[in-house]
């Protein structure tokens, strides 16, 4: 019975996902794709922040490097081959992560935050100050990459529906990958490092290698998000690597709830939607111009009422109910 219920639920979900583009207008479809890309980006940071305890404020560098990689290597005359561009973009992000991560992991805590920020700022200034990527103006990507084998075009993501499904597939596969990773021995080791690194080292784990591997994997997934971002908008500029971007994705992870993968997804959905709602002229009229004010106040209020983030909400409720049911009993 349970199995059938679950199967029906999954089928309904799939139907909903496939039907969504025909119900939603192109504006909402593009918003949904944007949310999914940020969800993927936040998931990759969750592996570092929530699962391993490495708080990075330089995550946008990897997102931006992958986005620039795709844009710079796509030929001027036609679409590039995704079979080369996607792994290439991810490898470029991972290569930068390997070099900077090996150095940054020498430090801990707030110093780690600042060193990752420093390395991200270096990448930012490379694109900001040199003519490599068009400087501050950024550059355009005229053709979305397509999946080609020889002359055979296997997958073309120009169509907004295909792009939506493709993004969704990337998100779900990465999510599945991370969920399996966290269930593996490797993931258990990462959790151990987050909780008590000293003890893990005493237990014979070479924690540096584990942390570096997690860092490189997380940054590689951020690269996938960057690839999708460049393909979605067809435009990249240095602001993709700015610290505000790293801050935003870190906020998604914190707001969503640390340590739980789906917390990152919830956080990405919540923050992006909050921004959209407060910017909407239709809902708030003229006050939408000052959306930073309402957005900021909403963030402060959310921090006040959600000590464990959105994903911790059920647990928070359960605890409260338990404490309520216990206190009268103990009084008797």
């Amino acid at each position, binding site marked *: 019975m349970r199995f059938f219920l679950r199967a029906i639920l999954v089928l309904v979900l799939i139907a909903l996902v496939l039907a969504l583009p025909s119900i939603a207008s192109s504006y909402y479809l593009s918003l949904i794709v944007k949310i999914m890309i940020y969800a993927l980006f936040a998931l990759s940071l969750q592996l570092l922040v929530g699962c391993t305890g490495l708080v990075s404020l330089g995550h946008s560098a990897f997102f931006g490097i992958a986005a620039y990689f795709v844009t710079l290597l796509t030929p001027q005359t036609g679409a590039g081959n995704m079979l080369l561009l996607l792994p290439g973009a991810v490898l470029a992000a991972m290569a930068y992560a390997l070099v900077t991560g090996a150095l940054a992991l020498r430090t801990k805590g707030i110093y780690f935050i600042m060193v990752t920020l420093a390395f991200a700022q270096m990448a930012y*200034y490379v694109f900001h100050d040199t003519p490599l990527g068009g400087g501050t103006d950024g550059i355009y990507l005229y053709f979305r990459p397509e999946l080609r084998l020889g002359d055979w075009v296997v997958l073309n993501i120009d169509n907004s529906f295909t792009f939506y499904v493709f993004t969704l597939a990337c998100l779900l596969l990465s999510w599945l990958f991370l969920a399996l990773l966290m269930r593996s021995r490797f993931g258990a080791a990462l959790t151990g490092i987050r909780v008590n690194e000293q003890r893990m080292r005493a237990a014979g784990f070479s924690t540096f290698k584990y942390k570096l591997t997690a860092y490189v994997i997380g940054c590689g997934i951020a690269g996938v998000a960057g690839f999708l971002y460049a393909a979605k908008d067809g435009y990249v500029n240095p602001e993709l690597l700015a610290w505000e971007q790293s801050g935003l994705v870190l906020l998604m992870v914190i707001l969503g709830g640390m340590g739980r993968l789906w917390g990152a997804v919830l956080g990405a959905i919540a923050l992006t939607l909050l921004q959209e709602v407060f910017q909407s002229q239709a809902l708030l009229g003229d006050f939408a111009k000052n959306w930073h004010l309402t957005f900021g106040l909403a963030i402060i209020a959310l921090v006040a009422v959600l000590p464990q983030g959105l994903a911790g909400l059920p647990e928070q409720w359960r605890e409260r109910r338990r404490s309520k049911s216990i206190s009268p009993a103990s009084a008797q």
Partner: protein
Amino acid sequence: MDPAIFLIQCLNAVQYGLLLFLVASGLTLIFGIMGIINLAHGSFYMIGAYMAFALQPLVAQYLGGGFVVTVLMCVLLATLLGYFLEWAFYSYLYTREHLQQVLMTYGLILVFEELRSILVGNDVHGVPVPSWLAGSVNLGDVMTYPVYRLFISLVCILVAILMFWVLRRTRLGMMIRAGASNREMINSLGIDINRLFRIVFAIGVALAALAGAIAAPVSSVYPGMGNAVLIICFVVVVIGGIGSIKGAFLAAMLVGFVDTFGQVFFPAAAGVMVYLLMAAILLFKPEGLFKQG
């Protein structure tokens, strides 16, 4: 390089470094003692500068005072603001995780920026240099240097000396230093930690606002000025070692010189220089130059 130009660049570097020190010293105290990563600190710098811009005509009209009175008003109001903010927002977060505090202070940045935009607008405004400081001194035959910049450096040095005196010679300073090296211990020694936190936070806000107010005639006031200074101040705090005023001073001077001369010698890579410096220092000293506690 021409010695006069070199001298001018050195003076610029010192002035920039000293201003950074004013902002960063508050940040490092708040960080070291209260354990709060205060992203809103750049906003306090911005608030100081905008107060100097907005209060100047009011002060001239009602109090009949000039620039000095305006700056004193800014510092007074900023202290009250700091006291209020600590009571209303920050005091609830001490038991939470660090990252929750980051999230809330980020919310505060947005609120402050938008309030600024509603109250003053988004234009760039100049703040007049007071007439008694408007001249310039001659350096060599052709070069001149504005007196007002020298005045900034002088004020910063006086504040720095005052701060070192308070920290080294007074009871409050003793409590602050003790708090920076071991928070739990001074609490168990019977010192009211909540009061200490409130005072430290108000001092930090006042220092940032003072820096903003006296820098306003040189930098003019513009949207986003707080965020620009925030990150560089975090760099200073981290290079100097969290909670160390001495470290913040050295780091601020270092950053001032590296940034100023970086722009002279390597204009293409000027932005990167400071971050390269920080990465290099942290790789050899993973906890900054002078870590406290």
